[in-house]
């Protein structure tokens, strides 16, 4: 049964070849971001939106320049050294005008999943001018508050959000949506209980509709990241694979159905980069496409170009475009 599932989940991976031996053509679109941690491509327009997280704002990229769209998010600090200022994290459009923003700017339990209506809005707007927001508050002694909504992915009727709060559970949260109306966020899938590994961070939806999670693991432990497939409706774990990557921060399928991961590699950032995940027997192997300095988020556009945010050096965070072909 496991092999049967495996073949289906990875069938797209085996089909096509990789980019050129020397790595893909790429260029830096913007180079002065402050801890960019999220990216979304606007439907219809193809405009690129980025969480300029340390600068507590979301920006739109226009002709290689940043235009503030949502500003004045609170700022929190992530890590104990190195430390990173963070504000908004994961971004997702559910339609052309509705932008969902995962917060990283408040304490666990108060962190917000914010929903913005950009239609006819006089930009930039303030962070608190959202259409709706919701939180995953603590409840009693048993249920811990959630925060750091790292990354978002959607199916036809639900948004899945990776969280960092209860390290006994490792929640992936869910918020249903209908049209442009987003329901409140709720705890959905306890990934740490399922995998025994900490920190769901990367998330995407497979071409077949499975929920695919990149379990970061401990930042002090190399090579412990997992790639895990779940049935999004039943929550059944379909596959759980050791990737040998250090700290997966993002997952995305290319337009050709190939699966890619970003590896932050906390304990040795020189090891970080963009990797292709390839079926290998009943496991997975990785192929490094390009080295990147602390990559955080990525998204493919309609043409197959890949946009990646990297933290890089202080206040020199980048938005990188990798040409179609992945």
């Amino acid at each position, binding site marked *: 049964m496991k092999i049967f599932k495996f073949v289906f989940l990875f069938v797209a991976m085996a089909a096509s070849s990789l980019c050129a031996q020397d790595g893909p053509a790429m260029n830096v679109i913007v180079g002065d971001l402050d801890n960019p941690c999220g990216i979304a491509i606007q439907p219809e327009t193809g405009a690129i939106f980025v969480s300029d997280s340390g600068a507590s704002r979301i920006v739109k990229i226009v002709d290689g320049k940043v235009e503030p769209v949502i500003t004045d998010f609170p700022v929190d600090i992530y890590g104990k*050294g190195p430390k990173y200022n963070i504000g908004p994290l994961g971004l997702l459009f559910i339609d052309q005008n509705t932008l969902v923003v995962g917060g990283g700017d408040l304490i666990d339990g108060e962190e917000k999943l914010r929903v913005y209506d950009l239609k006819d809005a006089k930009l930039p707007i303030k962070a608190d001018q959202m259409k709706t927001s919701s939180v995953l508050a603590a409840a009693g002694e048993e249920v811990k508050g959630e925060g750091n909504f790292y990354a978002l992915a959607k199916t036809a009727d639900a948004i899945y959000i990776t969280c960092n709060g209860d*390290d006994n559970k490792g929640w992936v949260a869910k918020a249903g949506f209908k049209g442009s109306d987003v329901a409140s966020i709720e705890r959905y899938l306890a990934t740490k209980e399922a995998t*025994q590994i900490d920190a769901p961070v990367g998330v995407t939806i497979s071409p077949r509709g499975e929920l695919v999670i990149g379990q970061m693991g401990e930042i002090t432990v190399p090579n412990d990241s997992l790639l895990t497939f779940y049935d999004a409706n039943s929550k059944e774990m379909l596959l759980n694979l050791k990737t040998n990557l250090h700290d997966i921060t993002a997952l995305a399928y290319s337009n050709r159905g190939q699966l890619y991961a970003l590896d932050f590699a906390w*304990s040795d950032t020189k090891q970080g980069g963009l990797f292709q995940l390839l079926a290998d027997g009943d496991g997975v192997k990785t192929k490094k496409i390009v080295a990147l300095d602390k990559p955080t988020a990525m998204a493919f556009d309609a043409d197959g170009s890949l946009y990646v945010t990297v933290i890089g050096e202080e206040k020199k965070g980048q938005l990188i475009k990798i040409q179609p072909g992945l």
Partner: protein
Amino acid sequence: MKRTLVVCALVSAWMVAMQHDPAVAETPLGLPTVVHPSDNAPSDAKIALGKQLYFDARLSVDDKVSCASCHDPKKGWSNGEATASGVGGQRGGRSAPTVLNTTYQRFQFWDGRADTLEQQALGPIANPIEMNLPIDAAVKKLSAIEGYQKQFQAVFGSPVSAEGIGKAIAAFERTVLSGNAPYDKYKINKDESALSDSAKQGMKLFFGKANCSACHVGPNFTDNGFHNLGVGMKAEKPDLGRFEITKLEGDRGSFKTPSLRDIARSAPYMHDGSLATLEDVVEHYSKGGIANDYLDEEIFTLKLSGEDKAALVTFLNEGLSSSTYPDVSAPELP
């Protein structure tokens, strides 16, 4: 009838092979299969050699300290003292970590400075405050013992070597396993009677309110990571642990998460042995560790009641104590 005999013969042969090939020896309930390095496959002879070396005090400069001196099977494979002791009564600053299930650890030593058991095994031999015998001298010393000469030839096809010493000790240590605990019987075999009511309550706390499983997770009850609990951080010159290896600021005062298997046997606790009992350990976490700039984000005030604390200790004591604890005795030495 003939077919039955053939099957029986095959089964018998397989069972004999099981008994004599440690590589396929049964893994205790609750633990994953032990993975052996491709260049250090186990064999009975190699494990026997490693066991002898482990217990042989001649690997120290004064013939008085062996691996087992600080990692004593009778004391939870630690030494029952706050810190490790070496030749001439010298004391290190850290406790002797248990050897139990160390094969499953991603890193060795409290600060994770060794990646493998093979690397780790040689460290204390040469360490001036442990066994204080330079590896070259250790090789020369063992080479003068006829029994070891023959065994190294038989196992490795070569004379006594540093590499062989490390491999043999590591192969032995990979047999030191703690599983088959009441927790495993409860969780895996669904044996409701395996845990007392108090232990069940402690288990619920462990995986919930008490936040223990934020770090003590998986079959070996460790995330294999490094965390600052505040222990020792108020000292004038704190032991900075993992930071000394990585030089990452956030690693200051962080130490490896130990396994909790058979934890009741290996008091005192923490990297400096500063907490004498499991009750002390639970109290440490209940009050939120010891505040410092690098305290792990998973350490916070828990507000555990007296009943909660008692239940947690019961779970640790009863729930994680192996019914097949490897109470190994010293072998005859060559």
